[in-house]
């Protein structure tokens, strides 16, 4: 097995009680046992569960040429369900994490004063965050990027709602919220961990033939089930979102964005402070916001709120949008919207006719969380077959012994250990 094609081979252990960072090696045995992402965070959770671990992990394919290889996972005991949950995060943040030199980050204990974690170039700093504690997510992102002098820094960050440990809170990826429906943001808050800031300029090796095999799979995906579909609005139509909410979304959409290496652009940037068609750089400094959670958007629309602006308020406060919709307001929301599941319910059960029932969805989500593949793409791209996954794991890590039985075992194990 060639670990350096997929990993930087390092686990960071952050002890907030002692304000100390340590590292240990990501071993071949750990990868053989759990492959990556939630397969390894679940094992680390078991090992450290007496110290309330919050674990951030990259998947086996995160940051590689594997189509959809954008995702990481935040694993912790949900304050809503009391069980281990895995929340995917994408955009560029998980790739950035791996390229900082840390594949996994285990945060133990809690700090007595607000802190932020700054990971860059193989270094880890626990820095004071009193200056941004109490600030909203948008101000915090701006201030952290300014403090560390780089606008490409990626962040997992919380707002006032998570600081207050509300069960309606979510952690945010940069400005735009997340798929956190399990209140893992409140776990950050309990630890007084305001943010994890990431900037990675490292690299991974690439196995012979892997690039071409990934391009072939990407081409198969593009001409498969997603062909002819475009943007979040087509997903919304397919999953039966209310027509009024879709019309609202479509009327405000500026551009559809894709996460790292994703062949479907599943995020819609909506503008409400200037014309959605405006393409010029010199426009409104904050013209709108990026929507990934269509159910949250639709719920706010259904609650009679102006969905674009209400999403912005949820993002700023760090509130899960469906909880805000249920409460009918975007400030001071404390009750959660529903029950937290092992994998994020922000991901639909079926997109473009792919769905094959609950067990199928759960396995696809477990695989996404282990492999670091975008959880939406895993639902909408049946071209990513299990056979293909096994072949690409073998090729990527030059690991011929890896088998379909192992893949099944790892997915089943993650499901069994989680909520």
């Amino acid at each position, binding site marked *: 097995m060639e670990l350096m094609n997929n990993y930087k081979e390092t686990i960071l252990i952050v002890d907030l009680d002692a304000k100390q960072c340590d590292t240990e090696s990501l071993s071949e045995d750990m990868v053989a046992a759990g492959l990556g992402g939630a397969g390894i965070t679940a094992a680390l959770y078991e090992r450290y569960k007496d110290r309330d671990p919050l674990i951030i992990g990259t998947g086996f394919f995160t940051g590689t040429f594997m189509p959809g290889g954008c995702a990481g996972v935040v694993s912790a005991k949900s304050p809503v369900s009391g069980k281990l949950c895995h929340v995917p995060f994408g955009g560029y943040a998980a790739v950035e994490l791996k390229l900082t030199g840390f594949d996994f980050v285990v945060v133990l204990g809690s700090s007595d004063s607000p802190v932020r974690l700054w990971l860059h170039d193989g270094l880890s700093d626990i820095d004071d965050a009193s200056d941004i504690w109490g600030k909203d997510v948008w101000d915090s992102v701006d201030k952290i990027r300014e403090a560390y002098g780089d606008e490409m820094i990626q962040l997992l960050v919380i707002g006032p709602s998570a600081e207050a440990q509300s069960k309606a809170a979510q952690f945010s990826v940069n400005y735009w919220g997340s798929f956190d429906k399990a209140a893992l943001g409140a776990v950050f808050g309990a630890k007084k961990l305001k943010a994890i800031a990431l900037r990675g300029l490292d690299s*991974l090796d690439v196995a012979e033939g892997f690039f071409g095999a990934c391009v072939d799979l990407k081409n198969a995906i593009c001409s498969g089930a997603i062909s002819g579909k475009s943007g979040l609005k087509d997903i919304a139509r397919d999953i039966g979102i209310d027509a009024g909410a879709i019309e609202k979304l479509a009327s405000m959409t500026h551009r559809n964005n894709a996460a790292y290496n*994703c*062949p479907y*652009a599943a995020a819609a940037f909506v503008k409400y402070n200037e014309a959605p068609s405006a*393409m010029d750089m010199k426009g409104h400094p904050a*013209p709108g916001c990026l929507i990934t959670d269509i159910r949250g958007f639709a719920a706010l629309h259904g609650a009679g709120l102006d969905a674009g602006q209400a999403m912005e308020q949820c993002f700023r406060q760090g509130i899960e949008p469906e909880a805000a919709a249920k409460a009918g307001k975007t400030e001071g929301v404390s009750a959660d919207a529903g029950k937290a599941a092992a994998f994020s319910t922000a991901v639909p059960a079926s997109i473009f006719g792919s769905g094959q029932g609950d067990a199928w969805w759960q396995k696809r989500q477990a695989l996404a969380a282990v492999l670091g593949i975008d959880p939406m793409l895993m639902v909408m791209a049946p071209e990513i077959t299990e056979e293909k996954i096994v072949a690409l794991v073998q090729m990527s890590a030059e690991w011929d012994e890896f088998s379909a039985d192992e893949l099944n075992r790892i997915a089943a194990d993650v499901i069994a250990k989680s909520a």
Partner: protein
Amino acid sequence: MDLKVDARKCTGCRICEFACNYHQDETISSIGSSLMFYFEEKKNYYGMMVKRAKTLYLGRPEGEQLLKPGEQIEGAGASAKPILLRVACDCCEDEDDGPLCVRACPYGVLSLEG
């Protein structure tokens, strides 16, 4: 031949940068790429820059622009500066199956023209 960017079709997936890096030094990363994504996140303003041998090509949503050495990259932000230190695009002349960034882009944004 030159690499061209149809910036309005771009979705910001950034795999072109990583593919170019692979062409330039056989690893996956973005820092050695001749292509660079520039991004003003809060405005969702983004485009691609290409370091060519004698010029810098900007593929922006409002149109294309060619800069000569010494000319300012207006408004592209601090994230744009490192491109000047990068190795120039060689159009992947030694790649049998064509330019890696073009092959990797899922949205048909990039092409070799001229």
